[in-house]
């Protein structure tokens, strides 16, 4: 039955999957199944392979796929490679590549095998890429699972540490729960499409058309189906009250992979939210008021809870919840401008957050995760550049011009006001002001507190971590300064969504 098999559209996914498999094989060949204690493992090969895989896949997108002529969907609409999905694939790949760079030194210091971890990151990445390209509920669900299961494993990577296992199990149990809810929603929508739309199909586009056509008389079960799907996605983006897992998982999971899941999973969830509920559909389903409440609640909970954390990872976890709230504001506003803002925000949040985690990774040592504010003390004096990266990251996440984080918020808020969400925007601004308080805490610890413990002073900066810091800092500044050009580019990506 499939008449359109355009595998060329899928090349980035295939590259990532291929390198994942290769990494697993190589790891088995090179290490014989695991690291030997007290011996340096040749991890460079797997790292290089994974990063190159991501970079090649990422480079392929602007080089070839962005301006490709001809059809952009394949396999009877199961797989869509429009500019919208391509952009999010870029974001996911950037997040993955940077996290891989970060993970290297972290894994080395713990004498852990890296092959499995790298392969897990790559598998999860491919899942995310399929998710953002999904034109069909089945692809969406498959992508979701391909993404989620490796991420659960990454959370539990330190299997001899209680906290890590706890994080993995919690994520798995609650994640499964959310997936079940979402699946139920799919089932309801599929049934509706079959009954009302005439053709029983799992594809998104006909479903959306049917829903829009019957906007006046939607049965309760169709709207409930929409709601359940939405809840599943809200769980992934960690919106309140479906956010409870986030702080515990972030606290227990290994640092570099927290960076990965915080940025990539969130970007993917935002993409799917826009793909499924973008435009007027949200209002048609009667879910806009509900999303208003969820967004408001998320921003309040995220920002307020972040205030009282003593653990930097937990603080960043709540901050990521808060950022999820800002993204929801953009999704809710729904105009083309707001959607471009969400895209902008996804990358802004990615570079800011990865930069912050890079500094934490730099500070971690064997048997000691740098996660308390006191671990940062005095760093600014010893390593002003590293301290500077942290400051940039924090200021960008707070939203200080001319950094990228400011324009992300600015574009979304502007669009929200234009769509009449004035109250929600005011709330967003107020909670943003609250975020100042906790984002400045690391800065204070860095530059205005005396050093505690002198052994920290001798850490040399790992080259790969330094590269990661450099790239993210550059992006934080450059994307902010050149925001106009960049936004213009994003508008074309959003256009794909509408058309």
């Amino acid at each position, binding site marked *: 039955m499939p008449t359109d098999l355009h595998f060329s559209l899928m090349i980035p996914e295939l590259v990532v999957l291929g390198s994942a498999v290769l990494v697993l094989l190589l790891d088995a060949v090179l290490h014989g199944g695991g690291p030997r204690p007290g011996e340096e493992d040749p991890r460079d090969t797997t790292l290089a392979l994974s990063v190159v895989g991501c970079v090649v896949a990422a480079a392929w997108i602007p080089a070839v796929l962005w301006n490709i002529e001809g059809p952009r969907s394949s396999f009877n609409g199961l797989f869509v490679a429009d500019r919208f999905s391509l952009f999010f694939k870029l974001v996911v790949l950037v997040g993955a590549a940077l996290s891989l760079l970060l993970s290297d030194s972290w894994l080395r210091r713990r004498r852990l095998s890296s092959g499995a971890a790298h392969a897990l990151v790559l598998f999860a990445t491919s899942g995310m890429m399929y998710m953002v390209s999904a034109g069909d509920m089945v692809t969406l669900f498959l992508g979701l699972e391909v993404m989620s299961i490796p991420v659960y494993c990454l959370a539990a990577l330190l299997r001899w540490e209680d906290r890590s296992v706890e994080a993995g199990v919690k994520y798995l149990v609650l994640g499964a729960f959310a997936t079940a809810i979402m699946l139920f929603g799919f089932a309801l929508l599929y049934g509706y499409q079959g009954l009302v739309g005439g053709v029983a199909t799992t594809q998104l586009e006909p479903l959306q058309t049917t829903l829009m056509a019957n906007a006046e008389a939607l049965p309760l079960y169709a709207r409930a189906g929409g709601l359940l799907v939405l809840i599943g996605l809200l769980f992934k983006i960690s919106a309140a009250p479906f956010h409870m897992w986030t702080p515990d998982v972030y606290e227990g999971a290994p640092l570099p992979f927290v960076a990965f899941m915080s940025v990539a999973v969130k970007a993917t969830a935002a993409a799917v939210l826009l793909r499924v509920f973008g435009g007027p559909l949200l209002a048609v389903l009667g879910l806009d008021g509900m999303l208003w409440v969820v967004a408001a609640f998320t921003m309040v909970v995220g920002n307020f809870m972040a205030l009282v954390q003593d653990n930097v990872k937990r603080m960043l976890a709540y901050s990521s919840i808060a950022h999820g709230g800002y993204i929801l504001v953009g999704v809710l506003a729904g105009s083309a401008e707001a959607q471009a803002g969400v895209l902008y925000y996804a990358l802004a949040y990615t570079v800011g957050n990865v930069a912050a985690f890079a500094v934490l990774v730099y500070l971690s040592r064997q048997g000691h995760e740098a996660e308390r504010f006191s671990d940062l003390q005095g760093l600014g004096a010893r390593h002003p550049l590293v301290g500077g990266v942290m400051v940039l990251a924090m200021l960008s996440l707070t939203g200080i011009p001319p950094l990228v984080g400011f324009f992300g918020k600015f574009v979304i808020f*502007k669009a929200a006001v234009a769509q009449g969400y004035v109250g929600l925007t005011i709330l967003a601004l107020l909670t943003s002001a609250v975020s100042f308080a906790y984002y400045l805490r690391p800065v204070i610890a860095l530059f205005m507190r005396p050093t505690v413990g002198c052994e920290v002073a001798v850490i040399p900066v790992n080259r790969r971590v330094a590269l990661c810091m450099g790239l993210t800092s550059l992006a934080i500044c450059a994307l902010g300064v050149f925001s106009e050009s960049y936004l213009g580019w994003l508008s074309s990506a959003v256009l794909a969504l509408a058309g």
Partner: protein
Amino acid sequence: MQPLLAQTAQAIAASAGQAVAHGAGGGHGAAEGPIVAVAPTVEATSLLAVVILLPLLGAALNGFLGKRLGTQGVNLVGCGTVALSALLSWKLVLDLVQLSGPGHAAGGNFGLHQNLFPWIHVGSFQADFALWLDPLAAVMLLVVTNVGFLIHLYSIGYMKGDPGYARFFAYLNLFLFSMLCLVLGDNLLVLFLGWEGVGLCSYLLIGFWFEDRANARAGKKAFVTNRVGDFGFALGMMMLFAVFGTLEPQAINQALAVPQGSLPATVPLWTLEAAALLLFVGACGKSAQIPLYIWLPDAMAGPTPVSALIHAATMVTAGVYMVARLNGVFFHAEFACYVVIVVGASTALLAATIGLVQNDIKKVLAYSTVSQLGFMFVAMGAGAWAVGVFHLMTHAFFKACLFLGSGSVILAMHHEQDMRFYGGLKRFMPTTHWTFLFATLAIAGIFPFAGFFSKDEILWNAIASQRGGTLIYAVVLLAAFCTAFYMFRILWMTFWGEHRGVPEGHGHDHGAESADDDHHHHAHGDPQESPWTMTVPLMVLGVLSLVGGFLGVPAVLGGHFGFPNLLHDWLHPVFQYSTVALDPTMAHNHAMEYGLMALSLGVAGLSIFLTWLLWGGGKDALRDIFAEKSPWLHDLLWNKWYVDELYESVLLKPLVFVSREVLWRIVDEVIIDGLVNGVASFCKQAADKMGRAQDGDVGNYATIMVAGMVVLLLVIVGFGVGT
């Protein structure tokens, strides 16, 4: 460099001939009949960005990798980028000269334009990061890059062995980048970016030897004083945007290209007056005019090349440049121009009188700079834009030369800056002496040195312009008298007469640069001439002080020999719609102009003669008479008219009192702190309440999820019932 200059001069002359043929006749042609504003001729280029980015690259390299580059590497990066930038700016200006040929037939302004990237587009506010090089910017560009390069070269010798060598060049390059943004910015926002950038670099470089608290304090004073000015500038910018809906000077000038008094209805005169006054507040800060000039003398705490580049040749003239850039606004804002001319003349005289009695060689030069900037603002206030820019240029030559010369002396004297310990240095440092002499003759306004032409035109416009007057002229003439006096006083005390030398056991504690002394070996003995990296810039600037004035020979002198006023004709397209007419009784009174010229020469000569009497004639006793007969006058000048003290008691003390007793004790501690702490504790308590749910139990988490889901479902059901 010399042949290049001549070449350009010819090219400019060629284009100027055309300008005269097609334009409104050049010269001081009054606006006759309705003006039809011709839109500027614009040509795109991609090299302007390179000109500004080269110094930025240098700053980044030296700033981040300075320690690894080594001294030679730092030199190469620091000076090389600026040299390339300077060469490129010559190429661009030659391109501009080409453009002035055929394209200029239209008679409007012309320039090269580059749009780097769209910067801020918010609603109706559109600001691109764009650069614009027209004849006015070209003059500034050449001055900034070329004088900048000479001073970079000079710094190699001056800063030798300093532990912050790479940092110094990084700051200097960063300054040049900011200054070029200021000069080339196509809208006021880019200009403002540069404006703030040069302020920052000025702060960093004044406090370069920050280990000494006095230096750090001087940097702070400069920064804070400038902030007052910047506030005015920002408000002025907003005002202009509110009226014109754009921040592009080209567009604003174009909109104002109408005869005085016939403004369009959309532009009320009072908004222009207010904007001009606010902008002038900004200019007062940056260009050290009354009442904000107090930071500049203290800024001499920075290394001497900094004083030459930033606090004499380039940055402090930014205010003058900005007024010239927005000539349309100031053309219509007649009242603001009166303020400008009065402030300029007062500053010129006040600073010159203070300079008469100072003993620190750099302090004298600093007050001299303040005074000369006053001269430039007199020209601006009189509406003689081109004349102000002309003096800006010649001043850059001779004042940079003077500062670099003083730096050479200071280095030779082991960072002793008190002229009472100098004397007779001509013997030891001939090159420094001769170049210093040239520059002194230039600033004193002796024919045919550069300052003669530019200052004389200012004096002429001060009396002949409709916006000038006899009183202004008298004040400026008196300032010119003082100028020649304090400059020759430096020459007598430093280079001529007997060498006095620093007495044994005399500490260096009063030298502002004493912090640096530890790093220099004290090979006491006869002062030595400086190395070539320092003397070559001196010689180039000395020659420019001699010949620079020929770019702007006034019509009464050159006209008979067919020698055009090159600079005036070159700038004519920029200023053509803002020409302020001369007083009709003066306009064609050549006898008057010759007479005044002779008068100012005579005044300068008299002044020089007096210094000879006091210092050269061996009559030391004469000097004391002044101090004895009128001690109050001496004290008044010595204490700089007590302005610092006046500010302290009139502004600072009440301000501190109100700040501490009202703003801090009541507003801050009670109201604001109460609010802030209240909000904070509210947030904390709320978070603690919410946090209780976060107990780590997966079962509870799942329950909360389900509860949330059920509530949301119920809401939907509720809606369902409702519909």
